[in-house]
């Protein structure tokens, strides 16, 4: 053992106590009788959007995650875990963040009360993509009980880099809408997650079936955007009418893999600068060979 059994037990004990204490404080939900969330429109007039995200072509082969440097995580998986950067089943695309991009301006929605959880299980973010509302609690959970750090590098929000050496939850909120905020673990370089922040509750992440559901929208015209970590973004406009369900389908395809521009909170990467702004006159990256850059990028950039 590299570290003392005693210490890990002590830490575990502290953890249990900590959780107990947290639970003790917890029941503010029931007695507090939350004021009924005041929606900024007549909910009786609401309509809905349903849709599907499709994928055409062959998905890239899953990237194997070499966890040999972390035996505890390695042991968690029966087969070598993969980073399913493009998660496709029967032509349906998962891990897509879908949200209302335009059409809700000026409306002030109550903060979603329930926390959204991004867990760390077997040294993988579960789920890899989450969405939350500004002000909503985002819980970063360490279920592995070994050292992770949660290093979020947003642009519009303030960054943070949390240490989580034991089983624990750490809560954070984001103040500004942002699509998307990258999250990574520096201890386990293969761990990459994404958090989308909207100013309203109309956002969803597709599961394996690729379907999504944005219900109870005020009637009106909207721009809906779908974001994928490798395939970039797509927009659709849709009209929502009272009591009706509008249908939207997004279709991503294999050929977008090489051309996609993926909006991320993190705007500056060394190998993007020359391409993005060749005339800038900044000499910093003049000798970073552009040809090698994108292919060697370990992840979306």
């Amino acid at each position, binding site marked *: 053992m590299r570290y003392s059994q005693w210490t890990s037990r002590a830490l575990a004990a502290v953890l249990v106590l900590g959780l107990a204490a947290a639970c003790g404080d917890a029941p503010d939900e029931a007695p507090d009788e939350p004021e009924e969330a005041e929606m900024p429109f007549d909910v009786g007039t609401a309509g809905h959007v349903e849709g599907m995200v499709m994928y055409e072509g062959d998905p890239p082969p899953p990237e194997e995650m070499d966890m040999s440097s972390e035996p505890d995580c390695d042991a968690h998986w029966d087969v070598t875990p993969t980073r399913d950067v493009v998660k496709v089943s029967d032509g349906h695309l998962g891990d897509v963040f879908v949200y209302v991009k335009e059409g809700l301006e000026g409306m002030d929605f109550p903060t979603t009360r329930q926390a959204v959880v991004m867990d760390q299980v077997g040294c993988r973010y579960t789920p890899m993509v989450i969405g939350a509302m500004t002000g909503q609690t985002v819980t970063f959970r360490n279920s592995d009980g070994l050292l992770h750090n949660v290093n979020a590098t947003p642009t519009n929000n303030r960054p943070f*880099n949390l*240490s989580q050496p034991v089983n624990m939850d750490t809560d954070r909120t984001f103040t500004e809408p942002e699509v998307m905020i990258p999250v990574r673990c520096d201890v*386990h370089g293969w761990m990459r997650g994404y958090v989308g922040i909207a100013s309203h509750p109309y956002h969803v992440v597709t599961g394996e079936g690729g379907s999504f559901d944005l219900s109870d929208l005020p009637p009106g015209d909207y721009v809906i955007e779908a974001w994928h970590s490798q395939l970039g973004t797509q927009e659709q406009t849709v009209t929502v009418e009272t009591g009706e369900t509008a249908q939207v389908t997004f279709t991503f395809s294999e050929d977008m893999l090489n051309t996609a521009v993926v909006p991320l909170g993190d705007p500056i990467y060394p190998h993007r600068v020359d391409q993005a702004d060749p005339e800038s006159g900044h000499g910093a990256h003049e000798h970073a060979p552009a040809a090698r850059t994108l292919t060697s990028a370990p992840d979306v950039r």
Partner: protein
Amino acid sequence: MAGLLVLPNGGPLTAQEADLERGREVYDRWCASCHGVEGDGLGPAAGYMLPRPRDFTRGLYQIRTTAGGEIPTDDDIMRMIDEGMPGTTMPGWQDQLSRRDREAVKDYIKSFYAPFETMAEPEPLDFGRAPRATAERIEEGRIFYDSIECWQCHGDTGRGYGSSGPELEDDRGYPIRAVDLTKNWKFNGGGSVEEIYRRLRTGMDGTPMPAFSDLVDAGFMTDDQLWNLAHFVRSLAPDDRPRVREVIRADKVEPGQVPRTVGDETWEEVEKFFIPLVAQIIILPRWFDPAVDGVWVQALHDGEEIALRLTWHDRSQSPDPAWMQWQERVLEVMEPVEGDPVEPDPRPDRFAVQFPPVIPDGMERPYFLMGNSERPVYLWQWQSDRDGAEPARARGMLDVETLSGSIEADAQWEAGRWQLVLRRNLEPSDSEGRLHFETGTPIPIAFFAWDGDNAEEGPRGSVSSWFFIYLSEDPPPSTYVAPVVAFLLTGGLGLVVVARAQRRERALGGGTTGDPDPAVHPPPHDDHRDDGADGGGDSGPEDDPRPPP
């Protein structure tokens, strides 16, 4: 600009505008070449630096007194401007610029990140006072270091060789190294226990180093435990930064006693001389990101042979496949502009010791970067994928010719550190191009190191300037001192014994002298143990506060 209205010490708007204009002038003159005119960290010189200069447009600052993710206080920014950042290319400006200019630059830097205008200046955290360092605290800290897995990045011994190393990147995707905790003089935010504790609490935004404040606040660890950890980290480094001395002394030992292996215990008593190594940025292709920043040199001779033990920190035993991705990333951002493109390649680690072919009269020495066509140098070259080392003659870094014969070598990489013993007869096997070591005279010596996994070879490596090595003509003074002390002790005690015996004789009227006290035996003869100049702080991190696992 309007935001400056909320800055403290605000005067009339025009004065503030004038101050900001002053800040811009000073910034453009002194800061922009690295940090960029736009404050984006992309100045013309930035490409030669790793870590890259701070990008002020993101409002992210490593060294703060505020919680993780918070903006810094004005004092935090001033401290960086005034004192600079050890371990980086950022110098301190306290002695270069007036207080007013530095304040103006600070305000101008803040103007690159708009939220400074709207956010209230944050409160610094309360860090309390450092508890006194005790052996118990340091031991507790060590256990804590292990249990919360600091070694994942910093390595068991703290030498920065943890398994996460090859993948680490900063907030902008540039490769970044976990700091070698045994060299606290290179800590970006300072190496005192208080400063270490602050980095633990606040984290270092923009780097992989996370903040621990949340853990303390949530009761997962106590503040005391964090102080213990800080004390332990501090204990990994020497009390004082190693002093650099011009002359390496090679003491003389008994014939046949020159140690042959890195593990020979004789070395533990031999003084260590720290030689700093710096980037080779003169000969093309230059290299601005060398991984090896210093070597500890120990030397002994016995009149027949000379041996050097060289100790330097290196995060990997090259070529290590795990570090290939590091090499790719470093080359991507640091590839030399000059010469042929450099490809990632499995490269060995290398080390070279340089001498003049003959001991020069006076101070005139060959060019320190491996000589030139007129004045070659004599090298001992070692590389990690071969047994032994070989002699060579160089007429410049790009003109190295192997000589016949060999240099005896023994090398070992362990826990983030190379140790290498090189050994040769004082008299060369063949006088052609090879130095004849003489005792009692200073002999020029210089050093080169290459980290293969950092894409280093040829001119791309780290170098020292010329130093001297001095082979003592006779055993060190301790050899004389010890017998003298022994003689005096023996003599003195002998007198005591005699006096006592005489007393007893008088008392008893007998003639016995009694056994002398066992303590009067002379101390065991040891060439080195009594050597008063054992290095102390000079030996630095190599004192190994904790053995490798």
